[in-house]
């Protein structure tokens, strides 16, 4: 099943994107780890969504529908024979290249390319419309199953091993102190009186924030890094110098200036979608980027989890 989905996604991606999929040298090792990572992420998301039993049941049914639909695709005799032919052509080309250094066989290359094109064409003619229609329909049903608030949570969800703080320990009514790390860090910065120490601490924090942003959020050029570093240092010094009243008033703004630029992330995502759309205007009819589809309409991951969840008796209840 997993293989089947990968194939269909490869097809869709190859239709909408010119760049081939890049294989990591550690792909094999990662695939096994990814298995658990994906499942833990979905479990964290499900815990944070507070889905009712009816909602879980409905999502499970939608995943069964996807599974059934993909089975049809898997059993299509034309696809099976095209796939076998393509595999044979690729194998032939591979062996030729292996045994004939610095040579190429245009005939074999042409055969493989033609077979690839034929598969794409076949898929486009036979399945693309159907698949788009199918997924759009499923996505609509899934969006109807969830509440707008749940969709908002899914849309902002990032795969994770440890759920975000909002899921683990959400802000509570009447809670005075936040245990946010950045707030605590700012409190410590505000306590520093020695200007030299302040300078050192600001530098250290700025470097840390830039490294995290660069590694986990988006790549930054050297110029961007310098600008961001200056901005962070300036912000921290401002936080240190503000009166209590002004600091309390500006705390949220200061935190926003120190954290990765979410507007930039949003812009990057929009640009990627625009690029795809320019290449193939029809491609976004199936919203591959929809987080609801990505996290909750993925049969190999979601079906076993929801099946299990629905059999476990829910804890709690009034005594």
């Amino acid at each position, binding site marked *: 099943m997993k293989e089947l989905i990968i194939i269909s996604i490869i097809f869709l991606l190859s239709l909408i994107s010119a760049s081939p999929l890049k294989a990591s040298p550690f792909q094999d090792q990662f695939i096994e780890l990814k298995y658990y990572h994906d499942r833990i992420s979905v479990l964290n998301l499900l815990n944070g969504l*507070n889905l009712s039993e009816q909602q879980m049941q409905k999502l499970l049914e939608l995943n069964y529908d996807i599974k059934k639909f993909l089975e049809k695709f898997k059993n299509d005799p034309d696809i099976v024979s095209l796939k076998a032919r393509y595999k044979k052509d690729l194998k032939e080309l591979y062996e030729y290249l292996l045994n004939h250094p610095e040579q190429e066989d245009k005939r074999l290359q042409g055969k493989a390319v033609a077979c690839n094109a034929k598969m794409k064409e076949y898929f486009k003619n036979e399945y693309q419309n159907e698949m788009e229609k199918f997924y759009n329909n499923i996505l609509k049903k899934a969006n109807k199953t969830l509440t707008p608030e749940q969709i*908002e949570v899914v849309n902002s969800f990032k795969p994770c091993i440890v759920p975000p703080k909002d899921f683990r320990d959400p802000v509570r*009514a*009447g809670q005075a102190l936040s245990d946010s790390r950045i707030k605590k860090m700012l409190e410590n910065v505000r306590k520093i009186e020695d200007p030299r120490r302040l300078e050192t601490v600001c530098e250290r924090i700025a470097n840390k924030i830039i490294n995290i942003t660069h590694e986990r959020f988006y790549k930054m050029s050297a110029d961007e890094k310098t600008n961001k570093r200056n901005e962070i240092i300036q912000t921290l010094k401002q936080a240190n110098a503000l009166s209590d*009243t002004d600091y*309390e008033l500006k705390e949220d703004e200061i935190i926003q200036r120190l954290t990765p630029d979410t507007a930039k992330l949003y812009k990057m995502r929009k640009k990627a979608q625009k690029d795809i759309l320019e290449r193939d205007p029809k491609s976004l009819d199936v919203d591959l980027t929809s987080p609801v589809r990505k996290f909750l309409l993925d049969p190999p991951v979601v079906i076993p989890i929801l099946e299990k969840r629905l059999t476990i008796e829910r804890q*709690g209840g009034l005594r």
Partner: protein
Amino acid sequence: MDPEYCHTEGMPIFSRRECLRLMCRTGAGLAATQVALKALDWFIPSAQARPLSKSLHQAMFFKKMSRQRVQCELCPRTMIISAGKSCFCRTRKNVKGTLYALGFDKPCVVNFEPIERGPLYHFYPGNKTMSLGAAGCNLNCLYCQNYELAQRSPEEVKTIDLEPAAAIRKGGIKSVTITYTDPACQPEYVIEIAKTAKKYNLPVILCTAGYINFKPLEHIISFVDAFAVTLKAITDEMYLKLTGVHLEPVLRTIKHIKKSGKWLEIVTLVVPGYNDDRKGIQTAATWIRDNVGKDTPWHLSRFTPHYKLTKLPPTPRKTLEEARKEGLKAGLDYVYITNLAPHRGNHTYCPNCQKKIVERLGFKTKKINMNGGDCKFCGKKIPGKWS
């Protein structure tokens, strides 16, 4: 050897009589010094006493007693406090026979946050409020989520040098909330803040446990526009177990606030193994319906492990859902689930047409389907202050 003398080599030699005389003189000298110091203290206050009398604000609601003792009349504990000692709540201290409010103008926490964090759902939803609190509380709840502040004295915590007027002017806020610890222990500060807020035409909200005597309550009510009162259990036994105080004064407070016409919402933190019994929830719901009306919002809050109950699990969703069902079954119109989101129990539904009239994601109000204070779908008047 002569018994009148004791002799030790290398040491001065005293007769017994001389020794007694010396002891008497020393005693008299020490006593005289003490008296002299006391007299000096009377005319020139000591270095320690000077800032106290200068920076402290005299408390309201206390009675002077003999031997510099005072009786605090703020809460039903009515504690008699000796000179130099503080009240149970740690917010009031007897300095030489006068009770002072230690937390006056000394907030230890200030946040600019949604008004819904009170929790308060029917009072100008979607607006930003300035929430502040000073250390100290007259309860000792097992699950206190702000125990670092509530279970300490204002003298022990870092305070914020807040200028309320400046914060109100610059903060873009629509109300002021006194919360986190119990503002019922700080009537002087509540009144001071309320006076400043009134200058800017801002309503004042109090989030309190309601353990307060009638007279101070009546005085505070006149300065406050809305209350979120916690009703922590519905039996005296459970109240004592969870909070260390009796239930009756809290019920009296809730009824009195309702009678005053000020806006009221009730909050119950549902703690597994303590107040999560069906009978208790049913009794609480019935009490609210019969005493303060079915249109009083009731928040059933999720407990998360804190303070002395760190070994308990958070309240399961099912428990809160069942408790909400019981509340609705008892006839209450607005029963909410708080501290658990997203959940359908976060929203406000019209009791007439059952449509969703206020959509929330946690404490964030997303959409209000109302015309003024009326349901947009059926026109039913929804109690509260809307816009």
